[in-house]
């Protein structure tokens, strides 16, 4: 069989590697190249050195967008993971143990399916639905539920709360997936460990913090990175839901939207590429840092 090894490997690898090289590496190389030009998106372009990056440094909207991405980067993973862990714990272990077998709260198989529903909806649909949920007058779903005497809440029309509304939708959409991920992780934790701990009189909180959490660490780490990357994105929601795309008054502006606006609306493809380069390095350093900081020896079960 040995002589057949190379054709086999090459056959398997060639197509994905070629696709990757053309559509990822190639595209990136072009982005780096374009970030040094004044290309408008139409016609030809001139090299302008690092002028785009200089412009970016002095662009107040860029810094606003970066701050908002930072806000999402900080809160999206924490809130989503905390909620997902809580729900996953309830679904798997929260019901206590009966006859030596730990189980979830009553009805947990159904909840598990329901939690996953938001994941099945396209993000654009989610954005449109939540646009109505957050409607700023009485026709909005939440405002419709509030007593008539109350002033309607402005939600996305409020500079102060608009970004929080986006965060809420991002969390709502993501949490189901991580419940399932963590549930699977919890399912692979051997029952005997819980049993032994329960025999020693451990409370549910102790079970969670001393057993579940350490044994799920690998999953949480992956979740953190994925959610971090989602926080760098948020494009679809901001683009569809917010006032004036990124408003009011840039209060929901994010980097991905800035790239889109500059590339396709303001005819500044060169500048948009420079923003893309910045986003690329930010995402890369985030992933590297997360892996670095959260590294710890896997607990041997």
């Amino acid at each position, binding site marked *: 069989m040995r002589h057949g090894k190379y054709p086999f490997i090459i056959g398997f690898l060639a197509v994905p590697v070629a696709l990757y090289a053309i559509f990822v590496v190639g595209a990136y190389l072009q982005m780096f190249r374009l970030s040094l030009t004044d290309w408008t998106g139409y016609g030809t372009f001139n090299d302008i050195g690092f002028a785009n990056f200089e412009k970016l440094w002095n662009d107040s909207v860029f810094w606003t967008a970066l701050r908002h991405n930072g806000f999402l980067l900080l809160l999206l993973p924490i809130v989503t993971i905390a909620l997902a862990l809580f729900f996953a714990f309830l679904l798997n272990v929260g019901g206590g143990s009966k006859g030596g077998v730990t189980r979830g709260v009553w009805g947990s198989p159904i909840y598990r399916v329901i939690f996953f529903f938001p994941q099945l909806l396209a993000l654009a649909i989610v954005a449109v639905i939540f646009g109505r949920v957050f409607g700023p007058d009485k026709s909005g779903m939440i405002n419709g539920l509030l007593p008539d005497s109350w002033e309607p809440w402005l939600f996305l*029309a409020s500079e102060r709360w608009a970004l929080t509304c986006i965060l809420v939708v991002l969390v709502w959409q993501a949490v189901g997936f991580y419940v399932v991920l963590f549930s699977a992780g919890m399912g692979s934790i051997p029952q005997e460990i819980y049993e032994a701990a329960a025999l020693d009189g451990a409370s549910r909180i102790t079970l969670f913090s001393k057993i579940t959490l350490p044994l799920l660490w690998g999953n949480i780490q992956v979740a953190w990175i994925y959610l971090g990357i989602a926080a760098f994105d948020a494009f679809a929601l901001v683009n569809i839901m917010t006032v004036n795309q990124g408003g009011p008054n840039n209060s929901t502006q994010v980097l991905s939207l800035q790239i889109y606006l500059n590339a396709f609306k303001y005819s500044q493809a060169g500048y948009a590429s420079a923003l893309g380069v910045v986003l690329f390095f930010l995402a890369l350093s985030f992933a590297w840092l997360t892996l670095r900081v959260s590294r710890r020896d896997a607990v041997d079960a």
Partner: protein
Amino acid sequence: MSDITNSELDRRTLLRRAAAVGIAATPAVGMLSACVGGGEDDKTEQATGTKSAENPLGIDPKAPIEIVIFDGGLGTKYATDVDTPMYSKKWPESKVTYSATQQIATTIKPRLNSGDSPDMINNSGSDLMDFGAIVKAGQAADLTDLFAAPSFDIEGKTVAETLVPGAVEQGTYDTDSGRKPFAVNYSFTVFGLYYNKKLFDKNGWTAPTTWADFTALCDKIKAAGITPFGYAGANASYYMVRAILTSAGKIGTEQVLKDIDNLKPGAWQAPAIKQAAEAWGQIGAKYINKSFLGLKHTEVQLQQNQDKLAIYPCGSWLENEQAASITPNFEYAVMPYPSVTGSDQLPATAINAAAGEVYFASAKGKNPQGGKEYLRVMLSKAAALEFTKLTKSLTVVAGAADGLTISPGLTSANDMLSKAGKDVFMGYLFDTWYKKLDDASREAANTLMFNGGDAQKFCDAMEKASQEVAKDSSIAKFTRV
């Protein structure tokens, strides 16, 4: 050369994956595929024929043309049922390939860049292409010969002579080789304050001409439990920008707006702008419904149709857009913006009316002359009349719709137009020239109207944005005279 951007719709996936590239080796759709550049090297074979009285643009009678129409508020019937049959009647051997889309930039931009452009394009809608950039890249055909050619069906006049004043000017751009027209702005829009005539008649309210009358009317409307004034902040704040700047134009003449278009330092700090912003800011602070900031234009327009909102700043397309929501108790009428001060340089009847809806022939298509000939057909009196009948929109063809009674709103707009006489001004062009400044003006108008009405803040924000554009060498600049 291949497509530059064929994946705009896929941006969410794209950005997520682009960010993930360091971690997960997922093949992604690239933002820029194989080749960067503009199709500059490819010289497409272009069809031409011999010029004659019958064929003033010198088209090749046998060469096919391809047209792309924006499928929006105006529909596409005017193209399929009027313009194309007229063109085909004159040039039976020239096959017309037609398509319609709502995503002009998404579908057309890659084709322009790859040298495979349609011959005549209707650049419109929310996904329109930055026309200034198209001109700068040499993608739009010079229309000088079209406007100088004889009119399709008005004897003894050139195309330019059949149009309303300012129509050619509005599609004229500065290039390295001088000022030239590149676009036909086909529809003619009259702007003003729209209201329900029946509601006003029922309550004995009349259209105000001075600002004091206007605020007094707003007080009465408010007392009747109706929101006096409003617009949709989420996606229609440019209606408000137009309201503020129209008032400014009436205070200090169109020169104020020309200075803005020419990015003149201090243009946004002019007294006329500040007075207009102050007056409107007060309206915002007192009479607007705060929730409108988060609503879209259709939602607010519906509220007006339900008599929950009295006065709405808009253009003459409004009636057609709302046709399905109008009840028998609703009849659109329009009034000019009231004079802000007693010393306004233009009278209270002065209005802003402008040509809009860009159509252009592609410079690098296979048959640019054919595209221009199609435009010449559109600019005929017969085609213009049918357009107005079908879309309830006036066209730039002067007097084409005279004597036509179509709908109360359009009749009201026509009345306003004739009362204004010579005091009709085109307004401003910076919103199509500089998209970034356009976005800044929308934000500033929203902040002014929904967030305290601070006129100085409005002027400062816009002055800053305007000067940033002026200093940015990567943005193509245009001027007005």
